[in-house]
């Protein structure tokens, strides 16, 4: 009996000695006994984070890339020969076949509440899920409003889990400097009212206070007219948007047809939106999906937005 006890104590001590890594995951702890050697990453924005940290040799598969977007040549170069397990949302079978230890995805970024692939359905197969922080709000309504920490924290979490923390810190502090420089330039300028639009629709799909574009618009020295919406991405009405009279538009460019220019044309022909300052002055910018979802591309996108919405800076 005594032996058993001391063996148990030793076992506990030994497991404590092994480098156990814990990060926050939508308010719950996510713990790894060792650095994952095999990971699968979903979507362009999260893949960009992993590439920025140089994790290519640990990535055994990507999901949700070619089903929706055209990739850039840079992205393809960084990707090399990493296979895509599923062009849109993966099935458990797709993931299990690649035998990963971790899946980096988010709610409506590769996973649907109650769907086939969720942290709960992957756990029995030994696959831990790192959930994109921006998407936590889909299950937990008490999240803080969006800030650029959504990007910084996720890169730091990924860096910590994958044992490249120093690199992550360097990236994040570089980004913070860039944003501070933008803030210094725009601090004394009046903040234009900015409206973000996903594309032509009968009711506009836009970013509320929990989606990262809300924080990006603020970082670029603007004010999101739909900041009052208690949602991540969600629908509002043309009346509400037109009443706010936006002065600048951020249009999502899906790289189909003429991209964001088609969306702008739609607004020019819209009976109410055509009367807003932004449409009359043709003050808009088109940004790609990975620039408007949490990822390294956010930083350049903020710089582009700041330059476009404050012409005096140029």
């Amino acid at each position, binding site marked *: 009996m005594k032996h058993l006890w001391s063996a148990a104590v030793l076992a506990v001590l030994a497991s404590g000695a092994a480098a156990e890594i814990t990060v926050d995951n939508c308010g719950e702890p996510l713990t790894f006994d060792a650095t994952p050697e095999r990971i699968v990453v979903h979507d362009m924005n999260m893949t960009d984070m992993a590439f920025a940290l140089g994790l290519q040799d640990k990535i055994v598969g990507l999901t949700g890339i070619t*089903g929706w977007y055209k990739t850039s040549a840079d992205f393809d170069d960084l990707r090399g020969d990493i296979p895509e*397990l*599923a*062009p*849109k*949302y*993966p*099935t*458990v*079978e*797709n993931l*299990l*076949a*690649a*035998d990963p230890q971790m899946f980096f995805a988010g*709610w*409506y970024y590769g996973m*649907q*509440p*109650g*769907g*086939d692939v*969720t942290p*709960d*359905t992957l756990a*029995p*197969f030994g696959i831990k899920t790192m959930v994109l922080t921006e998407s936590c709000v*889909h*299950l*937990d*309504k008490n999240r803080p409003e969006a800030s650029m920490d959504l990007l910084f924290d996720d890169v730091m979490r990924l860096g910590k889990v994958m044992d490249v923390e120093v690199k992550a810190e360097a990236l994040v502090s570089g980004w913070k400097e860039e944003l501070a420089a933008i803030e210094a330039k725009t601090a004394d300028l009046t903040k234009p009212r900015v409206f973000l639009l996903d594309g032509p629709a009968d009711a506009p*799909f836009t970013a509320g206070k929990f989606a990262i574009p809300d924080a990006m618009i603020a970082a670029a020295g603007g004010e999101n007219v739909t900041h009052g919406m208690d*949602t*991540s*991405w*969600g*629908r509002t009405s043309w009346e509400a948007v037109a009443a706010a009279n936006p002065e600048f538009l951020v249009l999502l460019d899906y790289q189909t047809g003429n991209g964001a220019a088609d969306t702008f044309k739609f607004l020019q022909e819209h009976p109410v939106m055509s009367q807003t300052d932004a449409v009359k002055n043709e003050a808009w910018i088109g940004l790609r999906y990975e620039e408007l979802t949490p990822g390294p591309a956010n930083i350049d996108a903020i710089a582009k937005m700041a330059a476009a919405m404050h012409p005096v800076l140029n």
Partner: protein
Amino acid sequence: MARLSLNLLLGAVVLIALLLLSTAYGTTAIPAPDVVHAVLLGLGLTEGEAAPVHRIVFELRLPRALFAAVIGAGLGIVGVVLQTTTRNDLADPFLFGLSSGAAAGAVFVITVTGDILGFWTLPVAAFTGGIIASAIVLSLVHSLRTSAPEKLILAGLAVSFLFAAITNYLIFAGDSRAAHSVIFWMLGGLGLARWDSFPLVCAGLLLIFAYTAYRARWLDALLTGDVTASTLGVPVQRLRFSMFFIAALATAVFVSVAGVIGFVGLMVPHIARGMVGPLHRNLIPTSAIIGAALLTGSDIVSRVILAPQELPVGIVTTSIGALFVFLLLYRTAKS
């Protein structure tokens, strides 16, 4: 009787073949020898280490194939029961507003309460929603002191619309992305099939099969009309009500793990009647086998046609169903 046994035997052979195919094919290609090895390993008949492909076969595909068979069989029997008790050829398991109730339950937890019970949150919510909707329909019918089939259909329709409205309200008032999650409940899918919940669906099938087998003679009597059935000593009202109740319960169990899989319950009884006639002693087992084969086959198609993506199985069953109705109409028109 000989014809029935032959049919059942044939059906069983087809079903087993489909179950094997369903285990062999999926959204990832796995060589056949590995599949065989995985099944043997899972059953403890051979030694070796459990590689990921083995887990895919034994913990995803095998339960999934069996889920499809059990749920297909169950929906087939529920279809028979409801078509007989309502004397309506178009009655199906979702008559009681079950589908919209289940969807409303699922959307309610997605948009309002969040993930409270982990893996079981959505199944429990969908089950509860489905049961509430059917309870409303049944109590409505009960309080009207009638079991007239057309009243049931109207009540089911009204409740369906009500719950569809609630679902849409929740989506628009809350998280509009929840609309994506609802698709699973509206179109069905077997992606959540796991050994853990297998006893549950088996219980659903056993419930409906045992009760209808036990009451097969009464159901036969009902085919002759209410008056004749009454003179034969069948408590028509009570029978109808208890059948509705059991059917709703079984269907809610199926919906809670697989969403709303349309047309199986509608189509299977017709095919089965064409093969073995209207008497329930033959009709019930035949419908069960056909339902099982149909859903297992449809599930294979749903996984293979767009691999590595997966199609909701309801899309497959409803397209087969629509073709089936065309054929039915064409044949009736010709004869």
